[in-house]
């Protein structure tokens, strides 16, 4: 125990919290996407592939146009396009939603790999990264200032989007319709809701959120695209969604927990904790399994999620 206290003194908690928020950014965005999609009744395990593709598209456009904002826009649009593919396959052609999601994940590795090789041969250098923007006044608040108000655009957007998605889902007619489609599409249809339309819009919106998450990797963090740079974050985000019981605020909290485990693991290595680095690296994945297994409370999916809906 004294060792632990000594160790705590060596960890800069503000920098740990700040690193956690940054690392949570793509998890939160993808988890919000998952919430939108699943609440309308469509499982979206394609978020991993959506983020990878968007990371690439965002990087490529930012490089070609010498414009990071345009790159961010491209990431969002490409995320929407890939999600639209998932929507068409699973809503229109009734492909098993998990199979369709896996297809997109495989496709993402393939497509980004093929194009990355082409770009690489042309000797592409990075387009730079999004600048850190200190919010005037607010950033000088002690503790909270450096954690929340000294970030880059994707992280700020993430914080705003948590609130927006929460409001849309629980305080608008659209949100009510979305939840109805996820719980009992037949009842929703009977009440005059266009189930297909609601599902299409929500899946494509989840692609926009995942696309922004992709921009985090290539445009905000390192200014470069690397094969498989999303490293399973899309799947961890789904676990955060489950842990957060399919709510935006819950998903936000769960993402912070996962990202915190990640950031803590990285810091423990610096401090020479005698645990093999591979075990620290496993932390978020093991935590995910524990969460999905319900060790921290039951998580019940929307009743109709995963089932295609057809008018009969």
């Amino acid at each position, binding site marked *: 125990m004294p060792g632990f206290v000594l160790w705590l003194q060596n960890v800069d908690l503000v920098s740990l919290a700040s690193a956690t928020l940054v690392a949570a950014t793509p998890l939160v965005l993808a988890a919000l996407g998952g919430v939108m999609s*699943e609440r309308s009744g469509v*499982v979206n*395990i394609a978020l991993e592939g959506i983020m990878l593709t968007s990371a690439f598209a965002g990087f490529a456009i930012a490089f070609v146009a010498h414009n990071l904002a345009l790159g961010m826009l491209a990431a969002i649009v490409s995320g929407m396009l890939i999600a639209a593919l998932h929507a068409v*396959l699973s809503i229109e*052609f*009734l*492909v*098993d*939603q*998990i*199979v*369709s999601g*896996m*297809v*997109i994940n*495989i*496709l993402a*590795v*393939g*497509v*980004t*790999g*093929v*194009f*990355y*090789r*082409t770009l690489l*041969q042309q000797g592409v250098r990075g387009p730079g990264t999004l600048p850190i923007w200190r919010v005037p006044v607010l950033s000088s608040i002690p503790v909270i200032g450096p954690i929340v108000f000294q970030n880059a655009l994707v992280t700020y957007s993430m914080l705003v989007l948590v609130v927006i998605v929460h409001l849309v889902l629980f305080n608008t007619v659209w949100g009510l319709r979305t939840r109805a489609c996820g719980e009992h599409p037949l009842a929703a249809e009977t009440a005059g809701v266009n189930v297909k339309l609601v599902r299409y819009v929500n899946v494509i919106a989840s692609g926009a959120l995942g696309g922004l998450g992709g921009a985090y990797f290539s445009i905000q963090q390192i200014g470069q695209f690397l094969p498989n740079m999303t490293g*399973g974050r899309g*799947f961890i985000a*789904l*676990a955060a*969604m*489950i842990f957060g019981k*399919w709510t935006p605020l819950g998903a936000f909290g769960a993402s912070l927990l996962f990202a915190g485990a990640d950031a803590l693991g990285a810091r423990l290595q610096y401090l020479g904790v005698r645990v*093999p680095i*591979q*075990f620290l*690296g*496993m932390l978020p*994945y*093991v935590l*995910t*399994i524990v969460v*999905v*297994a*319900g060790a921290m409370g*039951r*998580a*019940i*999916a*929307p009743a109709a*999620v*995963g*089932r*295609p809906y057809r008018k009969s």
Partner: protein
Amino acid sequence: MSTAARRALTGRLLLPLASVLLGLAAGAVAVVLAGANPIDAYSALFQGAFTTRNAFTETLLATIPYVFLGLSVAIGFRAGLFNIGGQGQLLLGGIFAAFIGYRVTGLPAIVHTPLALLAGMLGGFLWGAIPGILKARLGAHEVITTIMLNYVAAGLLDFLVNRGPMADPHRAIPQTPAMLPSAALPIIVPGSRLHFGLFLALLAVPVVWFLVERTTIGFRIRAVGLNWTAARASGISVAWTMVTVMGISGALAGLAGAVEVLGVSGVLTPSLASGLAFDAIAVALLAGSNPFAILPSALLFGALKSGASFMQLQTQVSTDLISVVQAAVIVFVAAPLLVRWIFRLRAAPAAPVSITEGGLGQTPPREGVA
């Protein structure tokens, strides 16, 4: 030919063939977009896969793990479970087999090799049974848990061979000591790398078919896959069947890992068979989860895999093209409605292809393992 027979033939042969052709076409589009010539790319791919004796044995070599992994995914599908954890189970199989392969000395080959293979199956079985138990007892969705266990297995393997307990102390690169000759799978075509694992793969197909179609366990697996509520109502322990089928699925993936270590690489490295298990999803879907259809399906993807390196060398088109083709093939196989729409076929089949059910959170059943 009667209408029913013709329709069965269409479903079983024409749709998979059409899917493969459409998949190759989708790959060609990607090649064009990437600024290369698809005809050059595909002819290089074909040359690299078939035209020389060496190319052909390499294709067969690449086919071997796809057979085991394809069977692994297929048997999961038959029970309505989507095992995406083949990669992790394969790694555990590789670890167990390698441990027996270099650590246990003084055994004759006739004992040593089968022992190492069995150890590999055990490793895969255990790693596969974990998500099975989590699903059966706690309702944790196997798609999420198996994906996470893939990362955990990769971390474990890296720990073991990267200056860890299984690392070769005389080498700087992360790998185990070499397998003993008594544990190695013998080469069956002199002058090539093609090994005895080919016969094991050919044997595994009828064994899995028999298991699924002709045994009590197989009957339970199919019953659970068709309708687990009905299966439970008729007295089948759904939980136990799920654990069993995930274990068997894992054992097949573990066998693939063991065969790769004992037959191909001869050492265990962190990059063992990377990505093969994901390819196997396409193998199983294209085969419609039919064990015998796994063979041609695995051969197709084996040929793509072995031809891809030559294609990359010749035309600078990335080997990742194969993933594009694979993904497209899965789409068309899983969406018969789409293929029929493209070819303007009438008589659309009624039921969608459904493999998994429900959301990614916790799903019933929550009965105890009996």
